[in-house]
């Protein structure tokens, strides 16, 4: 078989056609301003319908802007990693879906303070405070919720218990569940929140954080509680290897007593595709009963949407991006996030029972059972991110290996100091 000219030419032609194929789906060259946004709120995620509305509305109102959304599933961790890699490579989208202090510190996020001044008082002050470091607002609170315990009432009922109001009740529930071979909770789905609840249930916590005394009493107490729960055998045997999805799956199948998450979990885990439809009727929401009668509840800005600092000098793009953010945090959007996504923003909007539906309403109303509301302070800025993504996992792992409170605490402190 020799390649005669015709065969070669046809081969080259089909290759060229194949080569053109990927080009078809890509960006047509227009003179418009191009705005890119990467998000993992897609597919089955609770926010998808509202986001789709937002994209449609934005495109209709701004026909001169070419708005490109990259929707990738894969969860927060993968996307966080990739976003970081892209930003470090000098690229990244224009609108950053989910940022933390880890993005602010290297300067990837555009300073929004002056730009939003004209928008007025549209945010809850605590929510906006969570997005402010060193006095500058670097992102906007697009997900803001209480974080109560989500209890499986059927399991509680089966062991003759009710939603625990004190820590002693909590431990008793754990023992009762353990007798039936059911785990009370799991680290990945509640451990961090339990830690923070116990921590901030103590008066001197905020000060200890500000002074960066990572091994002081409030922290010690929190680790002690975690260790107590673990040593009592209330966690699954393979606890440390579980991902959030594993724990949630256990809960959905009546094999886990409680977990903790924000309101978005309602549509993501409680009423989502493939889940027993009756699950929503056997959940109850209550603050975590920390020690000494304190029942604090966390107010959490879980998604902070920011702008890529690189667009600062691109006037048209900057204007477009701000317009998008403005729509994202408008009253119309806030309303839809409550009614359709069951995941409120940090934007002021009254949450009535009618608008939110019984589930979300009960969820957010767990606040009334709390003795206090706390947020993670932004001073020092790295505390939130460092502890959540690095120090706490190492803390849990060392507890899993059988460390004492002191040892585990020192692991925790060491990561925070590095």
């Amino acid at each position, binding site marked *: 078989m020799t390649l005669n000219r015709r065969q070669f030419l046809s081969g080259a032609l089909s290759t060229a056609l194949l080569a053109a194929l990927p080009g078809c789906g890509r960006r047509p060259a227009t003179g418009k301003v191009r705005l890119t946004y990467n998000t993992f709120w897609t597919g089955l995620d609770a926010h998808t319908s509202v986001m789709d509305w937002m994209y449609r509305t934005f495109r209709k109102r701004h026909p001169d802007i070419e708005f490109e959304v990259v929707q990738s599933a894969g969860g927060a*961790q993968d996307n966080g*990693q*990739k976003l*970081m*890699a892209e*930003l*470090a490579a*000098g690229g990244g989208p224009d609108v950053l879906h989910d940022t933390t202090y*880890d993005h602010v*510190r*290297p*300067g*990837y996020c555009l300073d929004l303070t002056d730009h939003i001044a004209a928008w007025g008082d549209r945010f809850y002050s605590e929510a906006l405070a969570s997005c402010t470091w060193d006095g500058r607002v670097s992102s906007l609170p697009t997900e803001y919720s209480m974080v109560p315990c989500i209890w499986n009432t059927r399991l509680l009922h089966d062991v003759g218990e009710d939603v625990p109001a004190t820590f002693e009740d909590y431990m008793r529930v754990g023992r009762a569940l353990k007798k039936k071979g059911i785990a009370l909770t799991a680290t990945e789905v509640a451990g961090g929140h339990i830690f923070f609840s116990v921590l901030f249930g103590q008066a001197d916590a905020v000060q200890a954080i500000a002074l960066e005394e990572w091994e002081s009493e409030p922290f010690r107490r929190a680790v002690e509680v975690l260790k107590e729960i673990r040593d009592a055998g209330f966690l*699954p*045997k*393979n*606890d*440390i*290897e*579980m991902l959030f999805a*594993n724990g949630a799956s*256990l809960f959905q199948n009546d*094999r886990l007593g409680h977990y903790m998450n924000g309101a978005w979990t309602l549509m993501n885990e409680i009423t989502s595709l493939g889940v027993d439809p009756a699950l929503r009727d056997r959940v109850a929401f209550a603050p975590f009963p920390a020690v000494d009668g304190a029942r604090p509840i966390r107010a959490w800005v879980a998604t902070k949407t920011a702008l890529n600092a690189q667009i600062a000098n691109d006037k048209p793009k900057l204007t477009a991006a701000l317009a998008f953010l403005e729509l994202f945090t408008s009253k119309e959007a806030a309303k839809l996030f409550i009614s359709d996504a069951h995941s409120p923003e940090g934007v002021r909007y009254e949450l009535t029972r009618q608008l939110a539906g019984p589930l979300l309403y009960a969820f957010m109303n767990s606040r009334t059972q709390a003795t206090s509301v706390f947020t993670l302070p932004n001073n020092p800025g790295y505390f939130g991110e460092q502890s959540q*993504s*690095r120090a706490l*996992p*190492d803390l849990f*792992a*060392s507890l*899993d*290996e059988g460390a004492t409170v002191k040892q585990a605490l020192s692991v925790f402190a060491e990561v925070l100091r590095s």
Partner: protein
Amino acid sequence: MSGGERMNGGMEERTRGEHEGRLLVRSSPGARRRHRIRLLYALAFLSPGLALYSALILYPTAQSIGYSFQDYLGLKSRFIGIANFVELARDRLVWIGAGNNLRVLFLLVVFQLPIAVVLAYMLSRKPKVAGFFRFLYFIPGLVGAATMALMWGFIYQQDGGLLNALLKGVGLSGLVQPWLSRDGIVQWTVAIPGVYAGVGFMVIIYMAAISEIPDALYEAASLDGANGWQQLIHITLPSIWGVYLMTNVLAVTDALSAFVFPFILTQGGPLHRTETLTSYAVWQSFRNYRRGYGAAIAVFHFAIAVVATLLIRRFARREREESKAL
């Protein structure tokens, strides 16, 4: 084969000998001009390859080396000399990572390759069913590392996972473990899927090598009273030794670049127990935001790969020289 060329990576220049086989070789007036034309032709043929290679393999490597001497915060960097490498030498996790790479190598050399050889040998004895079994063996290798990793995630799962279900089913529930977290166990459990998936591929390679062994050797041996096992060891193995060595070399590079399984199964955790050199470099660069240090780890990884390959080359060359001398 024309005189003197060795198939050992092509790094040796051919010895001058007869049959240089070069096109258009004529000494004549105008030879210099022709030489220049030849040079141009050569460059025309070489340039796309050289361009791709230089831009996408060598240049990034050089850049990484550059990064490894810097400390990064966001997009800004400052030069810190060899500080990253000093830290690397003291970094426990780098050695844990290398240890995990070594575990993969161990499993490959001690289990995967020998098992593949034995299976290939047995299949060569049973030509009628060989194709069918070969297909079955190759299936795990087909599906790709990412899919296989997720599948093994299901297998290793605590509740509802295949492994624990099997153990409980045969009454060995005492052996049930948290396969993906217990220290000392998880390092092996994340290494197994890759080893498992590659067996089929090796079986195919070995079967082809074995097929070149003349029947006469086997017949002679069996007439001498050798059983199947002895024939395997004394006839088959020595005959395919070259191929076997080569697959061991491939195993070294495979083990060094292990990444997908620990990354997908355990994200290198818990507590970095299952990191490999590559996954640790990724973690440092993008989860710990220390790009310079991550690059240093990658450069270290590269250095190990270079040293290992050169050592093996030297070993292989000595082997060949010794066997030639026999």
